[in-house]
């Protein structure tokens, strides 16, 4: 019987479906299906990396189109060359359970959303992503066609580039019609062609059919070939300037998006900022790589390593939500409680929960997690007071439906806290409140 993946170990926290739908979908659509599954396997492998006395354990990460890279967790480091010291031990990523896939987790998410999400269009959107992960057939055709159409309208002067760009963002990136990395490459190619005034030749679909750009079908190859071709032409100097402009603008904006995500009023609203941040860091690294491949010396204001780190950290922030949501909800507060008990400062804990290096949660929710952790030890009363303060803070936001999950989490934590102290009146209050919210939501979604 296949293993059934459970969100929050089937513990009921109101608003979980909203947050999970929003964040897991975004995390799964950063990379194309196969790469996403491989990345998930890597995350799982690293989480169970052995600690061998006297040895530093590395995992080899094979790249079909490039040289292998190597990653170590204790201490964290990533290398593009094979570690060779006597203490280094290189392991292959073990085959994880064949059922431990993102596809199976997405199926579990779809089940939960069918019970708890009111907006049918959101469920349909998720169902498309699930289908993409569970079928062998490649997807993304619709996104590719949207780019080809925007390309045609722009090169012929029949469309407004700004409006077309906005539509591509909404449809392809935020509605997941392309993976984030494919979208980023396609957007870079589209913008660069328009900025250069040089377009890749179109083909006819049929002998007498309309002309159509196939450049977005194998978009990475098209992009690198385009840069290579222009670098060898009289447009070389202009290409250098435009690549630098694209890179510098995107690198600066990416950092701003990640900061917005950390300071966002809710976890769900932070997702869009993180997606945009990852997208722009990816463009920043893509144009530097293209310049390096063609020996172009462009005036970038950042090094490749900075863009790579920005992208890797933002991707980690999005990906971390999958582990968080598919574990017991008490796991994270338990981990934080252990750190607090061992004397680790709150500042260091926050750095690993909500910083540009680990943008896993918003700053406010990271503090909610720490307050929840305090309930387990000698700081119980402080944790309780802080949670009530956050309860009040989230109760005053302009759009309470945006913080359903945060409010649900606090209700759950307070219910457990009052149950532990034997305060029956407060226990009954929070139990009734949670049950009421769930009954209303499930009744409404059931009516559809």
């Amino acid at each position: 019987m296949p293993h059934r993946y459970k969100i929050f170990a089937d513990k009921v926290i109101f608003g979980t479906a909203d947050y999970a739908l929003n964040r897991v979908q975004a995390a799964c659509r950063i990379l194309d299906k196969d790469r996403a599954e491989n990345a998930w396997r890597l995350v799982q492998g690293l989480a169970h990396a052995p600690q061998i006395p006297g040895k530093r354990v590395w995992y080899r990460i094979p790249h079909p189109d490039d040289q292998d890279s190597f990653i170590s967790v204790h201490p964290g480091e990533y290398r593009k060359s094979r570690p060779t010291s006597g203490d280094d031990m290189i392991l292959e990523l073990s085959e994880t359970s064949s059922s431990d896939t993102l596809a199976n987790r997405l199926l579990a998410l779809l089940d939960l959303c069918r019970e708890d999400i009111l907006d049918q269009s959101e469920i349909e959107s998720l169902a498309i992503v699930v289908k993409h992960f569970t079928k062998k057939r490649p997807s993304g055709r619709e996104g590719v066609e949207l780019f080809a159409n925007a390309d045609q309208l722009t090169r012929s002067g029949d469309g407004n580039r700004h409006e077309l760009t906005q539509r591509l963002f909404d449809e392809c990136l935020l509605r997941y019609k392309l993976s984030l990395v494919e979208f980023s490459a396609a957007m870079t190619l589209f913008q660069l062609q328009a900025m250069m005034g040089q377009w890749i030749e179109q083909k006819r679909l049929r002998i007498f059919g309309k002309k159509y750009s196939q450049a977005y079908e194998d978009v990475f190859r098209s992009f690198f070939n385009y840069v290579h071709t222009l670098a060898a032409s009289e447009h070389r100097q202009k290409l250098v300037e435009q690549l630098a402009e694209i890179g510098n603008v995107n690198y600066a904006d990416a950092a701003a998006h990640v900061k917005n995500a950390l300071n966002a009023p809710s976890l769900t609203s932070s997702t869009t900022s993180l997606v945009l941040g990852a997208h722009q860091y990816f463009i920043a690294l893509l144009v530097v790589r293209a310049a390096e491949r063609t020996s172009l010396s462009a005036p970038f204001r950042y090094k490749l390593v900075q863009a790579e780190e920005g992208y890797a950290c933002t991707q980690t922030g999005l990906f971390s939500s999958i582990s968080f949501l598919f574990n017991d909800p008490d796991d994270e507060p338990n981990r934080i409680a252990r750190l607090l008990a061992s004397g680790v400062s709150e500042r260091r804990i926050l750095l690993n929960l909500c910083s540009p290096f680990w943008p896993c949660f918003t700053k406010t929710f990271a503090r909610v997690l720490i307050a929840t952790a305090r309930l387990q030890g000698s700081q119980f009363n402080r944790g309780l007071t802080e949670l009530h303060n956050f309860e009040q803070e989230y109760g005053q936001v302009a759009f309470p439906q945006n913080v359903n999950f945060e409010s649900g989490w606090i209700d759950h934590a307070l219910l457990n806290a009052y149950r532990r102290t034997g305060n029956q009146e407060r226990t009954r209050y929070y139990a009734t409140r949670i049950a009421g919210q769930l009954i209303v939501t499930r009744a409404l979604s059931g009516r559809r």
Partner: protein
Amino acid sequence: MNQDQLRTDIIDEIGPDAHSLYDEERYAIPEIILHLLADACIIEFLKGFFDFEGLGKGARDRFGEFIREFRQGPELVTLNISGDVDHALTAARVPSDEAIAEAREHLVNLLTTYGMHPDIAKAHAAVIEQSILSALPQ
């Protein structure tokens, strides 16, 4: 704003530019480097208008030593200077505009020495300056 919050704000502001010092390979920066970089930013800014010797005998030398070692490569730094930095933040006062301009120059200089592009260093310095000034007693 407390001193820990100020350091957090500086680390958030610098973000992946903390990797400016590194070139070829991707390294997960040891967390301590981020905290040292934040302290270095505070010291470099304050030294534009604050006399560290006012914190006690030898304080200026301790700060000077810290910055000298940090500029050689932060992994060499072993001095724990956070307590002194906290003292300095309590004792310093918001200076004149002229002194702020000089302090900003010190900060930009530190960040460019750390490997940042001058434009990025200036952008970070402007934000860090505001964070430090708002942390000082009026």
